[in-house]
């Protein structure tokens, strides 16, 4: 089967067999919000921020294959509200003090909240869990208060670095990311690992020491552009 076409928000999109809805959308400059999916990493389909309606059903655009003549809804008020609630719950579930966070301005979770217009009073209580900080490693710190369990570090370490430094432990609401050892110092994590690089952790959980607040306000990733800008600008080209 060669290329076929389908629709996203009324726009005709061409896709190759095997491409996900999100991959096909990216290529033509249609941004579908995402947090757990990252270019170069295997898809996980965990955060559901990429939820779209395909043929009337809610699916994760990062894992759902595109199909001929599929009709996809992406940027509708209803879907964006669902996404806003999902993102809001990620804030409620951890401890996100943006004013003191070194990821502020470069953080994908925060930028997603901006893009989705998350300014209404919270509908849910802040859970304020007690989560430890692991600063044992000489070059790396983990501030679990900000972890959204996206699993990007897990996949990056396993599949790209070939190390398996991070993994999930616990169940249900207690499920969280942990280092594969008593602490990060006792793993073979290095600051040069892909898993530790700035692009992998979408929030301020994986911290490279002595690097914080290096870029001043005004020069950070999302000071001038909404998240998704790099994909959406392809449409104008």
């Amino acid at each position: 089967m060669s290329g076929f076409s389908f629709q996203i928000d009324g726009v005709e999109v061409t896709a190759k067999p095997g491409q996900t809805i999100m991959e096909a959308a990216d290529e033509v400059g249609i941004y579908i919000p995402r947090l757990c999916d990252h270019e170069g990493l295997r898809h996980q389909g965990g955060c559901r921020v990429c939820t779209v309606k395909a043929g009337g059903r809610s699916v994760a655009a990062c894992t759902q294959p595109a199909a001929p003549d599929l009709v996809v809804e992406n940027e509708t008020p209803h879907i964006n509200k669902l996404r806003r609630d999902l993102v809001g719950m990620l804030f409620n579930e951890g401890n996100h003090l943006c004013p003191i966070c070194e990821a502020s301005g470069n953080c994908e979770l925060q930028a997603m909240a901006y893009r989705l217009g998350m300014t209404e009073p919270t509908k849910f209580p802040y859970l304020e869990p007690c989560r430890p900080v692991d600063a044992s490693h000489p070059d790396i710190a983990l501030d679990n208060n900000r972890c959204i369990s996206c699993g990007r570090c897990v996949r990056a370490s396993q599949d790209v670095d070939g190390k398996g430094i991070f993994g999930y432990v616990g169940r249900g609401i207690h499920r969280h990311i942990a280092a594969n050892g008593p602490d990060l110092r006792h793993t073979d994590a290095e600051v040069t690992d892909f898993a530790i690089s700035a692009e992998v952790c979408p929030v301020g959980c994986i911290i490279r020491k002595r690097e914080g607040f290096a870029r001043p306000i005004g020069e950070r990733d999302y000071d001038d552009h909404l998240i998704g800008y790099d994909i959406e600008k392809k449409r104008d080209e």
Partner: protein
Amino acid sequence: MSDLPKARIATASLAGCFGCHMALLDIDERLIELMKLVEFDRSPLTDIKRFTRRCDIGIIEGGCCNEENVHVLQDFRRNCDILVGIGQCAIMGGLPAMRNAIMHSDEPLRECLEEAYIKGPFTQNKTQIIPNDPALPLLLDKVYPCSEVVEIDYQIPGCAPTGDVIYEALAGLLSGRFQGFEREHIRFD
């Protein structure tokens, strides 16, 4: 325009740093236009301590860290048609809320006070007593966002919010046409 009755605004700073009140000045010269439309009732800006009459808009900086904050917030809810939380402290507790969870303790408040008044490496407190004068408002177990204490109608994000979002919100509310913020203007820091 000058014939219209001016909108009456009240403001309060609860568990905040007063930065959000200072940020009102970041509206710059647009403040002059705005001031033609409003007058202030109870506010640290006027030093009026009690409501003199019902207000159109109440603006709250800071969350609730003690019982006095709760009483003031409830008083604002009773006396204002529209209640607006300004800044991350009012919205989600902000910096004071660091005492809620980050202390890794089952009794974060006790640990916070002991660190401040007894155990801290730079503490000089000969009496070794945590201040407990009846005149001091009783601290709450944790710091609460305003929306967990009373109903909040709108929130102006930021720490401190920029002049642009404050203006957007106030101009919109005064004209009765506030539709939310430009996405590009939203900041949580």
